[in-house]
């Protein structure tokens, strides 16, 4: 892989004394799709909000690590410089398109606004470009639809419109936070195909956040699995899905219905217990209370991420040499 577009090193996000994201590192290459998987509360959304420096309140802050984009460290950039990069360098697509579009502004105007600000187009050119973008994200009859308000769009169309809004600023990296969770399955597949097509057409690099391994499997090149604020395993998609090394990843994959699951008529396997909350992290490996392979070492020592079989795993007892 050539030099990565974006490098995150030991990123830490804290709310007061609590670490929500505890030292994660990953790279994102040009035109690459990285899937960030994990349960609710594993810190994946916080990690991405931190990349945009759009954390939900003043109490939550980036407290360590670096976010390297070109020559800039986004973790240390003054707010004014960060604002110039937002939208343009990094775009974001959110989970719930119904609430993330301005309800009282026409769709076309919302797209044109970014075009005018970031590309300096005049009103007419921006409107024409907005219609063009709506066509690119697959909205039928875009010239008419541009004059609609968000409430006149269906869920899938709103998500397409929000992707068009994000693209209006011509970002190099798109952060998609659960972009298909609020949509039904057929529309979900269409949106994922759209993201793949945009990657082809624009060389867009995408960080795709999801709790759904199916979504990740359909789209991503590489996967990073998060648990309790840390990345427990990351590597190429096929490696990880075919042969997970971390017991948590294995558990996640087994929870999927389908051929690797319990089989027809059998209950779906689950991972026993609950993920720990940020205030009550267990000592040692954070997964050990739920891990079938936990040993005394796991209870005492936090496993450091290390390279293993072409990926990075943070586990004392990885599932090496075993046929799952």
């Amino acid at each position, binding site marked *: 892989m050539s030099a990565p577009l974006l490098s995150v090193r030991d990123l830490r996000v804290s709310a007061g004394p609590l670490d929500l994201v505890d030292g994660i590192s990953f790279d994102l290459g040009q035109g690459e799709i990285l899937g960030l998987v994990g349960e609710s509360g594993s810190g994946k959304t916080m990690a991405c909000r931190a990349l945009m420096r759009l954390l*939900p309140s003043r109490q939550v802050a980036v407290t360590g690590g670096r976010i390297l984009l070109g020559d800039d460290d986004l973790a240390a950039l003054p707010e004014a410089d960060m604002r110039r990069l937002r939208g343009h360098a990094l775009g974001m697509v*959110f989970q719930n398109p119904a609430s993330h579009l*301005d309800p009282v502004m026409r769709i076309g105007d919302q797209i044109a606004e970014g075009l005018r*600000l970031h590309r300096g187009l005049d009103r007419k050119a921006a409107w024409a470009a907005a219609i063009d973008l709506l066509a690119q994200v697959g909205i039928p009859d875009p010239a008419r639809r541009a004059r609609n308000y968000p409430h006149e769009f269906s869920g899938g169309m709103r998500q397409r419109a929000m992707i068009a809004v*994000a693209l209006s600023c011509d970002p190099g990296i798109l952060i998609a936070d659960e972009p298909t969770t609020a949509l039904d399955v057929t529309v979900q597949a269409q949106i994922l195909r759209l993201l793949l097509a945009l990657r082809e057409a624009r060389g867009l690099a995408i960080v795709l956040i999801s709790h759904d391994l199916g979504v990740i499997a359909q789209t991503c090149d590489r996967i990073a699995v998060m648990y309790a604020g840390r990345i427990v395993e990351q590597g190429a998609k096929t490696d990880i899905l075919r042969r997970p090394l971390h017991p948590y990843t294995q558990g996640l994959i087994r929870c999927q219905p389908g051929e690797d699951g319990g089989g027809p008529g059998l209950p779906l396997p689950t991972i026993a217990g609950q993920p720990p909350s940020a205030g009550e992290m267990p000592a040692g490996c954070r997964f050990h209370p739920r891990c079938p392979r936990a040993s005394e070492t796991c209870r005492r020592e936090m496993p450091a991420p290390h390279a293993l079989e072409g990926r990075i795993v943070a586990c004392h007892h990885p599932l090496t040499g075993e046929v799952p």
Partner: protein
Amino acid sequence: MRAGSLRLPLRLGRRYPAFGLGLGVVGLWLLLALFAPLVAPFDPILQDGTIALQPPSPAHPFGTDNFGRDVLSRVIWGARIDLQIAFLGVIFPFLIGTVLGTVSGYFGGLVDTVFMRILDVVLAFPFLVLMLAIIAILGPGLASFYIAMAMVGWVSYARLIRAQVLVLRGADFIVAAKSLGFGPLRIMFRHLLPNAIAGSIVFSMSDAVLVLLNGAAVSYLGLGVQPPVAEWGVMVAEGQGFITTAWWMTTFPGLAIVTLALGFSLLADGLGDMLGVRE
């Protein structure tokens, strides 16, 4: 006027009767004020001692006042001044209050604290007392009235919009706007304000009633419009001495104030229904 431009108000009027009625009443006064020179039968300030204090008659339907001026003509011309009072007395507080409230609510912190303390100081005094004090300093007249209104009236608008902004500033679409690299000004005035303004617009209509009555009150006290200009508050004040002998001098301008105020109230009510705002 194009025929099409009337279609929307008519349709809205049918769906929201209060709005339609209010629009009708205010619209009627607006037309009367606009075409006062054509509609009014006499010059509103022409005095004729020979016909002073005549009761309503076919020649003077609203009677004449103690200087022999036609009350009907004075009521019609008075609409010009009173509508101007209602408009200018609302628009300045509306603009000042809305901008300050939005900025204060959006940024919060020290900015908000300072604005809110200034607001508390204004609120600490009774509304009319503070206004009269400002007018007394500036000297009587309509200009002083507008300045006093702007200085005192903005607090209601500021509080109203600030409360809305506080609710909306954490909204998802504001986060989305930030994620596009938009600056605070653009976010405040292009995205926050259009979503937060509905309540203020409705309030401004009911505020117009209060401003109108304030204007009349201030003129009644001799601090607003100066004679011989026709203004309803002044007319009521002038007729006060004759209330037992010439009831028409106070009744008709009084009714004019009541109907216009009622019109604004209905407009406020109808707009509230239409925009889904409940006060």
